[in-house]
């Protein structure tokens, strides 16, 4: 049971997080909640990316006084670099989304997306 947990908790957890985020975007009416679900999805994906690069019993990819040489086992640094960028991109997009929400709220004075039908298709 333990190694099952160990093996699947990260992948399963991040997929479920993405699932919750996706469900939130599709069903929640409140615009801020949609953006929250978007943030959740981003976090989920980032978690997945780093989990893909994890190596059991390896140490963080930083040479310091403890880990002297690079012959030691390291975790994969590339997904971490990608996630660094993707977190900041996610925040930037969310910031812009929230600014838009404020302006839409000014115009429609409601946060409920279904009431905002200014643009029929």
């Amino acid at each position: 049971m333990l190694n099952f947990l160990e093996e699947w908790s990260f992948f399963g957890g991040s997929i479920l997080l993405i699932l919750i985020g996706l469900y939130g975007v599709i069903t929640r009416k409140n615009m801020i909640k949609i953006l929250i679900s978007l943030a959740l999805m981003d976090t989920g994906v980032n978690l997945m990316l780093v989990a893909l690069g994890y190596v059991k019993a390896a140490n963080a990819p930083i040479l310091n006084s403890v880990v002297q040489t690079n012959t030691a086992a390291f975790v994969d640094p590339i997904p971490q670099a990608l996630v660094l960028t993707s977190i900041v991109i996610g925040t930037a997009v969310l910031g812009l989304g929230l600014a838009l929400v404020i302006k839409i709220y000014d115009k429609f004075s409601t946060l409920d997306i279904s009431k905002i039908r200014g643009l029929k298709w």
Partner: protein
Amino acid sequence: MKFRNFLALIIVAVFAFIIFQAFTIVPAAGEITINKFGQADLSNRTASRYINKNVNSDSKKVIYKESSNLESGSANIVTSVVANYRSFDTLGEITVLFLAAAGIAIVLNLEKSEKSRFAAKEASLILNTGIKIIFPLLLLAGAYIFIHGHLSPGGGFQGGAVIATAFLLKMLADYKFEIKEKSITLVESAAGIVFVGLGLYGLITRGSFLENFLATGTVGELFSGGTIAVIYTAIAFKVGAELTNIVKSLIEA
């Protein structure tokens, strides 16, 4: 709308099930699939070249505080990936933040809305004095983080974020604290120019954009990062300025 939510749940569940399938594939002979959790074998990934720092040169062993002038001198391998090997991504990422800050400023200030705004009133005394103490410390911590980006965990983004949090707290504490828009944009532009200028200089001298042209010293020393230190300082100022700008626009929307 109950039925619609239920339908959405089913569809998303099926989607998640399919993605989950990807993880449970048993590869036939010679097939490659997603690695099991914890068993990412770095040997055939480009990451191994980054760890051994032998993308261009063929040095094998890197010993902390001993091996010197490697192709990328940073002890923190993630920083070497972010600022040396894939610095083009980071440049792209900085532009995303820059555009987001510009976008937010436009969206919030294009049409002055006449609705009554939530005005930050005088914060409580505790918060006020607390901020007065923490503010310089936070700035110092931020500075430490991005200066030691190539040695310890952390770097330009994290340092910039800490600085931005410092300014955020300052703005929340006393609303009289006013950062002039002009100064933020100046810092932003200056940092941006430094970064791109660095890249162009690398292009002129070493022949390819964003190439490292400074000596890389010995691993673990303060001045061992080559251009990484300069890049991370520029990033820290830029990210700090932009996030403060975003927060400032949101507060004064």
